[in-house]
C-alpha cells in the first residue's frame, strides 16, 4: 500500500530575483497511515512551509507530492480544496477561528461546505466539542474563550470531518505547559483511538516525546529522524 504522504525532492522558493529565497531545498519524506510524527527544527528552517504544502494550502515550486499515491501537483485549485475538505484537518498556531462566531458554528463550518444537513451538523459538532472537553462552551465566541480553549475548538473543527490526516503547526506554541500537555494528550488519543495520522510541528522536546517519530529540520532539508518507539516513555 502506498504511504499516506510521500514527498520527493520538494522545493519551495519565495520571491523573485534578488529577493529570492529557497525555504525548502529538496525534501524527501514518507509518512505511513496511522503515524504520529513530530517535526522539530530551528525557526526559519522551513517546517511551516512544508506543512502548508502538505495541507495543500500552498503549492511546491518543484518536486513531487503524492497523497495516497495520487500526484497532488496534477490537481487544480478546486480539486485541492475538495481534497482538504475530504481528507485533511489543519490546526494553526494562531487558532484561526472565525470571530464573533460561536464555538459550535466554527466547528460546524467544514460540515456546511461538505453539504451535511442541520441535524447531522449539530450532532457531529457537539460530539467533536465533547471530545475536546468543550461541550459546555458550545455557545461561546472565540473572544470569550481562553487560548487553550480556542485551540481545542480549532482541533474540534479539524477532526469533525473525521479526516485521515491531521496537520498541526505549533498547536501549543501560544499555550502554557499545562494546556500544552492537555492538547498533546488529545492528539495522542485521536491518533490511537480514531487512527488519525498526526503530523505536528513543535519547538518543545517535551511535546515531541508524545510522537512516535521525530523529524529534525535544518536549512530547508530533513536533517535526521529519531524514533521514540524504541524507548517507551
Amino acid at each position, binding site marked *: 500500500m502506498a504511504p499516506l504522504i510521500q514527498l520527493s525532492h520538494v522545493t519551495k522558493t519565495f520571491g523573485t530575483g534578488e529577493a529570492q529565497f529557497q525555504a525548502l531545498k529538496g525534501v524527501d519524506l514518507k509518512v505511513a497511515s496511522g503515524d504520529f510524527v513530530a517535526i522539530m527544527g530551528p525557526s526559519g528552517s522551513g517546517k511551516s512551509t512544508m506543512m502548508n504544502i502538505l*495541507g495543500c494550502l500552498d*503549492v511546491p515550486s518543484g518536486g513531487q507530492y503524492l497523497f495516497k499515491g495520487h500526484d497532488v501537483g496534477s490537481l487544480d*485549485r478546486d480539486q485541492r*480544496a475538495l481534497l*482538504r*475538505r475530504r481528507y485533511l484537518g489543519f490546526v494553526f498556531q494562531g487558532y*484561526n477561528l472565525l470571530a*464573533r462566531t460561536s464555538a459550535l*458554528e466554527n466547528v460546524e463550518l467544514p460540515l456546511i461546505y461538505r453539504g451535511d444537513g442541520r441535524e447531522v451538523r449539530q450532532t457531529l459538532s457537539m460530539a467533536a466539542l465533547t471530545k475536546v472537553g468543550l461541550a459546555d462552551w458550545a455557545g461561546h465566541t472565540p473572544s470569550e474563550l481562553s487560548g487553550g480553549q480556542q485551540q481545542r475548538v480549532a482541533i474540534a473543527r479539524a477532526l469533525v470531518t473525521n479526516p485521515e490526516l491531521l496537520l498541526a503547526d505549533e498547536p501549543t506554541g501560544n499555550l502554557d505547559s499545562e494546556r500544552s500537555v492537555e492538547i498533546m494528550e488529545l492528539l495522542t488519543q485521536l491518533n490511537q483511538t480514531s487512527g488519525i495520522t498526526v503530523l505536528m510541528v513543535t519547538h518543545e522536546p517535551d511535546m515531541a516525546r508524545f510522537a512516535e517519530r521525530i523529524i529534525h529540520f535544518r536549512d530547508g532539508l530533513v536533517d535526521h529522524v529519531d524514533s521514540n518507539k524504541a524507548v517507551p516513555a
Partner: protein
Amino acid sequence: MLFTTFILAFRSIRRHLMRSFLTTLGIIIGVAAVITMVTLGEATTLAVQKQIASLGNNILLVRPGQGFGRGGGGPQPSDFDARDVAAIRDQIAGITAVAPQASSAVTAVYEGSNWTTTVNGTTADFFSVQPWPLVAGRSFEPDEELAGKAVCILGNTVRKNLFTGGGEPDAPLGQRIRLNGISCLVIGLLSTRGQAGFGGDQDDVVIMPIKTVQRRLTGNLDIRVMLVGVDQAYDSPTVQTAITGLLRQRRQITGDKQDDFNIFDTAQISATLTATTTLLTGIVTAVAAISLVVGGIGIMNIMLVSVTERTREIGIRLAIGAVANEVLTQFLVEAIVLSCLGGVIGIALAQVLVLIIAPLMQVPWLFVPRINLLAFLIAAAIGMVFGYFPARRAAGLNPIDALRAE
C-alpha cells in the same frame, strides 16, 4: 448548496451588525438623497407647468407704447379702438379670438362690505382667448354687450371680500353690487386662478361688458389692451409679425420708424419659466448624483476597511475545504442582500422626506417610478461591485496567503 450559502451570508450579516449597518447606511443615504431631490425637482416643474397652463396657451398681449409699460418720451401713443379689434379679427390668419380690454379702478360695495379692485371691460371673447371657467352663472349675452348693460362677473377674491356672510356658494348670483356708485347685477362667478407668479392676484377682478365700462367708468372708447388668442396650429411669431404689419399700417408708421405699440407673447413667460425649471432640475440632479457618489465612496470605504479581516476569513474558509466559488457566492449574496435592503429603506425614506418637504415647498406630492428604480439599481450595483471585487481578489489567493493577510 445555494441554500447553505444563504445561511452563511445571513449569519455573517448578523454577526457583523455594525459593518452591515454602515454599508447599508451609505446606500440608504445615497438612494434617499437622489430620489428626494429629483422628485422634488419634478414636483416643482409640475407646479410651474400648472401655473403656465393657468396663463392659457399662447396669448398675444397687444398694448400701446414701446416695450414694457408706456415709458419713453414724446407724445403718448394713442390707445386702440374697436376698429383695430375688428381689423385684427378679420384680417389676421391663425387667431382664435380677439378680446379688447379697458380697465378702471373701482370701489365695490355690497351691503356693509366694500373692496377696492379693478374692473376689466371686455367681451365674451375674453373667455375663449384663455381658459378661465366659471364656477357658477354665465357669461355675457350678445345683447348685454351691445347695449352695455350693467352686469358683472366676479373674481374669487372680490366675491370673498364682498359676500362675507357665507351661505350657498352661488348666493351672490342675482345680487346687485355697486361699482363707483353704478348698480350692477352679478351674473357669474369665476373659478380661482391664484397668483400669477408675476404681478399680483389674478382673482382680484370684476369682469364687465366693455361698452358698460367705457360709457360709465372710463368715459371714452379707448381700448388699453387687446388679447389675441393664437390658434395652436399656427406659429405665434408669424401671427405676431402679421399683427405688427397691420397695426403699423393702421397707425401710419412708415419706413424704419419704431413701433408705438408692443406685442407680448405669453409663450415667452412659459419659455422662461420652463428654462428656469429645467436649470433647477439640472442642478438638483447634479447634487443628487454627487450624493450618490459620496454614498458609493462610503460603501467602498467600509468594504475596503473590512478587506483584511475578510481576507483572513476567506483564508480560513478555503483552508477548511471551501471551494473559491462557494466563498464568492456567499460574499455576493451578502452584498446583494445589504445593497437591496439599503435600496428599499432608502426608497421608503425618500417617500417620507418628500411627503414632509413637498408641502413646505408648496409643490404636489409625487412618486416618480423611473428615479426610484434608477437609484435602486445604481446603489445595488455599487454595493455589489464593492462587496464582490475585493472578495474575488481574496478568493484568488493561495489559502495560506489569504490567511497571512495583515
